[in-house]
């Protein structure tokens, strides 16, 4: 296994402070809307990146993972952010085989992020 991925698993996967920050920026409404947009976008971005990989389109993979990197950082999905950054860097270098492993890890991370953010949304409604 890639040593950077091993390292990733020992670091925190999520950052509750990022959600508090969004709440401070725009209240529970902004936080809820940001989470909803993000959770809608993640599977679309991952699917588009997967299509890029299949089609050998490194630029598409890079673009999708770049967008995912940016949004996941804003939402405090730290592990998803780190994986996206790694995948974006690999795609930019044209090493799509390695990027494919990262995409596998991102697809595995998605349900965890979804569960965490959905719970944060529910907590915000109370």
């Amino acid at each position: 296994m890639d040593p950077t991925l091993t390292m990733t698993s020992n670091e925190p996967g999520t950052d509750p402070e990022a959600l508090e920050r969004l709440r401070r920026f725009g209240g529970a409404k902004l936080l809820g809307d940001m989470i909803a947009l993000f959770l809608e976008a993640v599977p679309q971005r991952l699917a588009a990146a997967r299509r890029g990989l299949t089609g050998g389109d490194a630029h598409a993979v890079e673009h999708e993972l770049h967008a995912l990197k940016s949004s996941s950082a804003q939402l405090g999905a730290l592990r998803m952010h780190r994986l996206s950054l790694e995948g974006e860097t690999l795609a930019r270098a044209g090493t799509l085989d390695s990027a494919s492993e990262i995409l596998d890890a991102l697809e595995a991370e998605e349900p965890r992020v979804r569960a965490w953010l959905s719970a944060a949304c529910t907590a915000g409604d109370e």
Partner: protein
Amino acid sequence: MSTIAVVEDNPDNRLLLHALLDDAYDIVEFENGVDALAGLRAGRPDLVLLDISLPGMDGNEILAHIRGDSALRSLPVIALTAHAMIGDREKYLAAGFDDYVTKPIVDEAILIGAIERGLGRRAGM
């Protein structure tokens, strides 16, 4: 009230920028370079927040079009980027951006400060 053009393809980022800026500025939003350039020519905002990584024409190409257009040339343009690598600031300033703000947005004062400096330069011209 000054008008800020936001050029950003990510809907969550647009929503966040809108939430942070809407009280103090009029916001117009564009999702890609073609729409942005047409909108800037038609609407003449006071400042542009320009994402770098856009599908199709990227932020650097859009900036080149702005700087090459006599009507738009003097618009303050702030690069908005999630690249955040060492030396980026110098690179973007050298490319002709007026300022550079990194995503994720952690401190809204940095964003507002960059906008106000940009608007100040425009007012001082």
